[in-house]
Structure formats: C-alpha cells, structure tokens
C-alpha cells in the first residue's frame, strides 16, 4: 500500500504545514513552490532508509524540511531534535531527486534551427513548455531536475537551460552553449558540409568572439560538446584544450576508450540513455571513465521515456559500475557537472528538498516511485 496515504492523516490537518497544503495548487495559480510567507514552515519525513548520497544511508531516519530546503537528516538517536514537527511517514526509501543532465523534454521537437548553423543566442528556454506532460512523466519517474538542450544538429546549436520538473523553477536560464563539431551538424544544403569546414567555422567564431561565444571564450559559460565517434571526440578535445573550454562532453559513447585524454581535458561526460540491447562498448566506456574519475551523468534522448535514466544506471551497475557510483551519476555527480552541487543531487543540509519516496532501494528496478516532493512541496504520489 502507498504509505504516503498517511500523509493526509498526519499533516494535512496541521496548520503548521502549508508546504504540504500546496500539494494541490489551483490550475490558475501554478507553482510558487515556497512563497516567502510560507518560509516558517517546517516538517519532517520519516523513513526506514534515507539515501543522503551514493555512499551515505541513514537508517530509521527523519528528513527535516524547512523553507523548501533540507534542514538536516536525523538518525534514530537524533530524532528528538524534530520533536513538535509534523511528520510524514513513509515505509520505504527516500532519496534526492534524480537529474537528467541532457534532455529535450517539453520542447515539442523545437530543438533545432533548420537553416542556420550558428545560433549562439538561441535559448532553449524560449520553447520550453512548462505544462508539457513529459515533465510530469519525468517527475513521476523520480527526476526532479533536467537540463533541456538544443539538439546536436547545428554547429553552435544554442543555449541550454536547467529547470525543475515541477513549478516553473528555472535553475539556470543559460546553462551551456551547445557545440556540435560532429557529423550530426553537417548538411548538404548549408554550411558546414564537412568536418574541416565545421572546425574552420568554429575557429572563426572563437577568433572574434561575441555574445555567448565570448562568454564561453572568457570561461564564464560552460559548453556541451556534442560528439559521437572517437575521431569527433579527439577533435573536440583538441579544440577544448586550445580554447580552454569548460563543461561536458555529450553522447561521446566511446569516450571511455580515451579516458585519460578526457580526464586531462577537465571535461565531464554525459552519456546514455542506454536502452535494452546496448552494445558492450558504450557500457564499458562508462566504467573506464569512472575508473579515471571523470564525472559522469546520464542524459535522455528526444522521445526517451524518463524511466530510461535509472535504467541506464542499472545497466552500468550490472556491467560492473559500483552501485554508489551509479547512483551518484544520477544525482550528485550530475549536480556537480552542472555546478549545482550545493542545491540539488543530495539530501545534505541546505539542498533543495527534492525528495523521492521509493518502495525499495532506488537502484532496484523492482522499486517504484511512490511520491515526489519538489522544493519541499509534495507534488505527486500518496493520496493522489
């Protein structure tokens, strides 16, 4: 049974928990997750197991939420600290919300400019539909933070954004500039038409940088380097070194075969999704990157189901990636890659109270999401 059904018993009668009262926002007034006047609200969620991050599990724990943030996670001995707070009881596991480090969610396919290869000022946020059911689906799968990026079909594809899957919360309106010096961006009807042409165009943009490219050149804006094969990867790494780019490689399914070079570049890797039947090489590549301690996170494809994110991590775990590493790739490592490690990805004190309530250990495919809180607001599951 859904233990969250207890929600209604324990807290909804309690005036001190406006956060939970906001669980059913009226359609006309969507989402101010935590209005300032609700700032004093504090409550706790109890569970037999709380996964603070990949390595830390607190048993018989209480997650104390205040002002939409995690105040602290208490173990059995410290529970008295939460005396007097209303408690939501859950009988499974609690973890931080997962992060899709690359996706095209809620864009309705508006992810590429079909005629122009260079779009440094294009912002994906302009096409994000916050009411799109894909975001709700992601939320229900336990994904609370997503990077929405333009596709890899233009040399300079545009700027990505980082949003929460609930509440129109924008964490970063211009998170990366997406560069795709790859076959995916070559066309016959517009430049670039070839690899050398693509690199030449990119170099030209970086010689006299302006706008977003200038921010990238100045090290103020990270890049998302969309590459596939090993040759593309090698070129991209050279280019990144030359211009001192920061950010992450995206796709690059065989990056692990050049793990040492990737490590040297300081770039992270966003991989996947890995569907059923993924060949061994991309999976082994993830293991190799992890071995070199290159930060790895998982992404979704256009049309991917959100379940694919956790599935990808489980595939890697089956292949030999340590469970804590697999979990961190879904959460804290992804947050670190996005520069948001103080805000999302773990349940450490001060982080957003993005809680996922699971029926069992989160990395077990037999476990399911039973409830989700975003910014301390109960947004899905339980009595709904």
């Amino acid at each position, binding site marked *: 049974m859904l233990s969250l059904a207890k929600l209604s018993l324990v807290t909804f009668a309690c005036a001190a928990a406006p956060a939970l009262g906001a669980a059913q926002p009226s359609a006309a007034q969507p989402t101010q997750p935590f209005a300032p006047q609700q700032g004093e609200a504090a409550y706790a969620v109890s569970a037999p197991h709380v996964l603070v991050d990949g390595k830390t599990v607190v048993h018989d724990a209480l997650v104390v939420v205040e002002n939409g943030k995690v105040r602290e996670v208490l173990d059995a001995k410290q529970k008295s600290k939460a005396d007097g707070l209303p408690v939501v009881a859950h009988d499974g596991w609690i973890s931080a919300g997962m992060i899709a480090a690359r996706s095209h969610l809620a864009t309705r396919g508006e992810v590429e400019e079909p005629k122009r290869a260079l779009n440094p000022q294009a912002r994906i946020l302009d096409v994000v539909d916050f009411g799109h059911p894909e975001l709700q689906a992601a939320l229900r799968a336990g994904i609370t933070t997503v990077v929405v990026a333009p596709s890899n079909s233009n040399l300079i594809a545009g700027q990505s954004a980082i949003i929460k899957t609930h509440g129109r919360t924008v964490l970063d309106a211009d998170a990366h500039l997406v560069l795709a010096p790859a076959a995916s961006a070559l066309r016959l009807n517009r430049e670039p038409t070839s690899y050398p042409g693509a690199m030449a165009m990119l170099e030209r943009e970086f010689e006299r940088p302006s706008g977003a490219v200038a921010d990238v050149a100045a090290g103020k804006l990270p890049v998302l380097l969309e590459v596939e094969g090993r040759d593309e990867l090698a070129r991209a790494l050279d280019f990144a070194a030359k211009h001192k780019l920061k950010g992450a490689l995206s796709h690059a399914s065989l990056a692990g075969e050049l793990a040492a070079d990737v490590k040297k570049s300081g770039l992270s890797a966003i991989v996947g999704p890995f569907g059923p*039947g993924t060949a061994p090489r991309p999976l082994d590549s993830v293991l190799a990157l992890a071995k070199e301690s290159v930060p790895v996170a998982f992404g979704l494809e256009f049309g991917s189901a959100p379940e694919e994110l956790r599935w990808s991590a489980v595939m890697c775990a089956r292949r030999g990636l340590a469970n804590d590493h697999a979990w961190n790739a879904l959460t804290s490592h992804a947050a670190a890659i996005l520069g948001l490690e103080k805000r999302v990805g773990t349940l450490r004190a001060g982080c957003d109270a993005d809680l996922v309530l699971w029926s069992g250990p989160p990395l077990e495919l*037999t476990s399911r999401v039973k409830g989700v809180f975003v910014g301390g607001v109960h947004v899905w599951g339980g009595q709904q």
Partner: protein
Amino acid sequence: MLAIASLLVCGFAAEPASVPVSPAIGAAAAFLNAPAFAPACSAEVPAFDGDGSFGGPSAGPIVGSSAGQDPVEKGDKPAGDEPKAKEGDKPKAKDAADKDKNGKSKDDEKDEKEDKPKPKPTPPKPKGPPLAVRADKLYVRPDRVLEGVTVLIEDGRIAAVGTDVKAPEGVRTLQAKVVTAGFIDGWSSFALDPAAFGDERISPSSTALDAVDPYVDARWEREVLRGGVTAYRVQTAPRTRIGGLGAVLRFHPGKLAHESALSSDCSLALTLSSARGGDDVFERAADTERVLGAIADGWAYLQEKNEYKHELAAWEKAIADKQKELDDGFKKAKKDREKAQADAKDKGTEFKEKEYKEDKKPKAPRYDEDREVLARAANGELPVVVEAHSAVQIRALLESARKFKRARLVLAGGAEARRFAKELAELRIPVLLAPQPMGFYVEGAISSGGLGLAAELEEAGVEVLLGSGGADGLASRDLPLLASLAVGHGLSPKAALAALTTRPARVFDIADKVGSVEIGREADLVLFDGEPFAAATKVKSVICGGDLVVEE
C-alpha cells in the same frame, strides 16, 4: 498423380494372378496391398498424405489425425527430428516421377539431406563431463523451491536433484546461492539476418533456422548468457505479415544454431501492424483480415485434406466391395462369359466384354507446403504468435480465436490488451509482453502499453510471458532487467520467473526439455549470487545443454 502411376506399374509387376478384371480395379487392389511389397516402391506411399498418417488410425474427422499423433511425436523424438520427418515427405511427393524414371530414390533422399541447412546432429556430439551444482536455494519451478540441494548433471541432462544427492568423486561441483532454470527469451531477434527482418517474400513455411547466422560471434552469445538467458525464440521476418516458422535456439557459444536448437518449428508468426494501410481505416481492416485469414486458409486446407481422406476411404471400400463381389461370383461370371461367348459364336454376332464402370478415384488436394504449415497452426499443433497492439487488432484476434477453437493463439505486444484481459483469460490466450523502459508516453505512438500491463493481465488470470521484444538482438541480455521492471510495476516475482522459464517452455512445446530443473530435462541452469530479479545480483555461472558456458 505420378506416384499413382508408379504404383500402377508396381502393382502389375508384382501381381502374379491373371484374374481378368479391369485395369482400374487391379490397380486399386495393388494399391491396397502396397505395404506388402514395400521394398520395391513403398517410398512413394506416404506421399499421398502430407502428415504421413495414411492408413493409420486417422479415419476420424479433423479432430482425429494430427491431434492424436501430436503427443507421440513430441514425446518420442528429439526436436530436430520432427520437421525433418514432415519436410522429408514433401520432396518425395514432388520427385516421385523422377524416382520412378531413374529408380534411385534413395540417392535422391541422401542428396536432399545434404542440402538441408539444418542436418540433424547425428551422431550426437560428445557431451561435456558430468557436473554437480550445490544450491542453497533451487527454483525447481517457480512454485517449487528446494533448499540445500545438489543437482547432478550427466550427459547434458539433469540426472538427479535432491538434498541427499552426492556428486560422485571427481565430478566438479559448483556452488551457488540461488539456481534457476535458464531463462528463455520468448521474443528475440538474436543472430537474425538483418535482411530477413522486413522480407515480405517470407511465407509460412520459411524457417527461422534459415534466417539466423549460424556462425554468430560467440562473444555475443556469452554476453547474453551472462544475463542468465540461455534460449531464445526467433522468427524469420518479425516485421512482415507472415513471419514463418519460429525456432527456439540456445545461446551456446560452442555450437552452431541448429546443433543446440530446442525446436526448429515452435510457432507460426503473424504480425498485425498499424503502419500498413496507412491512414486508411478500411485498408488497415483489410490487412488485418488478410493476415488472420491465414488461419482460415489453414483450416480450409485441413478440411480439404480430411474430405479427401474420407472420399479415398469410401472409394477404397467401394473398390474392395466390387472386388469381393467379383471374386465371389467368379465361377458364375466365368460361366456366364463363356456362355455369352458361345452364344455369340453360335449367332455369329460379335462378342462384347461386359463393361465395368470405373469409379473415379478421388483426387488429393494439391500439396502446398505453406498451407501444410497453416493447417498445423489452425489445428493447434503449432502455436500462432500474433503480434497485435491496437484494440481493433486484438478484437479481430479474439474473433479468430473464437472461430478456430483448436488454434493455439499467443498475443504478442498487446499495448491495448488491458481492456481485453478478461476475454484473453477466458479464451486462454497467453500474452507475450516486452516491457520496455522507453517511449511509453510519446504521443500518438503505439507503445509497450505501460510497464504495469503485465501485472494487470496476470491479475485478470492471463498467462503472461516476457520477451525482450526483438528490437535489438542483444536486448535478450537485458531480459531479466525487463522482468525486474515488470515486477516493480506489480508482477509477482513468481509470475515473472514463470514468464521466463516454465511458461515459454510450455507454450512453445519444449517443456519436456527445458524450463524447469527436473530429472530428465536438459541442463540449462543459471547460478546466481542472490535473488534473480535484484539489481545487485550477479550471474556467477551458466550451464547450457549440460556445458559450463559461463564461469566467473
């Protein structure tokens, strides 16, 4: 017809009597006696009848012949034999004339055997050395668990299971926390030639064994085995209307596909696709009708064959009666004839032999190898796996199931099967699902029907089978993870285990070989270090056909 001619010749040659009966009757008599002078020309005899049941206890109507034979065949012969026995008859019928002409039918047969892409593995390859597995927990079947048992494997088969079983000295013993039967992927495309996928020329008698790469890289097989999956069902053209005869093969790295095959004709595959016919609803309906019409066609063929059988029996009886009549009245007839001859001579008129009216021999329906397969399908000898997703298609399938009660239908895919759960349960139609973690909310696209579908169907009493869906050959490796997903969405672990072992074995008629860890079964075992559907569980070793194929 040509075969009849040859019999005629034989008949006359062998018949010493010179009873003055008309040629037709003589031939019939010879025909009736055919088995008696078998060495001369018996090879042709069974050719009259596709399923080789001529003269056997098959006089009854449709219900009679093949259903009665079925268990005998399945029980007594190894899988490799079966199709051969059946297909072996076909060329004989076709080549009867040639054989008659050049009289070397045996050589012909030999040639045919050599041409076959899937020769029977005779003599059997030497089996691996005996093995013993010591299991803390053994799933004999999903509903039968034993603890602290030893499984003894000899000659590729399970020789003993029990707590008191001791491995003989010198026999290698493996240890494992949990042991199950090898998983069977009921819906795979492993090793399938990509060109076969969408080949519309595939016909019902096309065999999957001809469409798989027999030399598939053993690394891929090991890759899948490491997931705990030991066998897979594959069909010739998964994306066309008629997918031909499916096969259940093993992921045995040391053997060619046909050598380790569990069944080379486990199912007939039909596919109802919404993609065909485009937006035109009538065209789509016509397509559905056309595909499911295959079962009706098979039924019609079966009826033709049975009608022929009856007509032939009636004709034979009539001939026999006539012969008896002639034999009995022989003296009188001779006297009458002599008298008539004498009379004619006396009168100076011409003597006329009495004419006997010849009953026309019934004509056998034209042999058609595709319709032979369809007939087996319509008669329930061969399960029919129908891939269908939309409600309209599933409804059409249910109608077929009601109409052709003997047919053993299996619904594959079934994205919208939810609302038909009750009917599927009533009609005992198993549903083969491929729970996919992807694409289930994409607007407008037909998806896997949601991960909860397996649990909901199971709840309604439908027998659920799980497969990897055949989208990617290597997806078979991830079948246990897909099953975990289904478990996460409400399917009981017991049902999930059954969906990967006993159920596919039963549905595809290989339960006497695999699917459970019982004495006499072939040894396909997976050794885990924990419960099979837990993410942290690793496959430690895999035994396939008695051979240790994966070892930590």
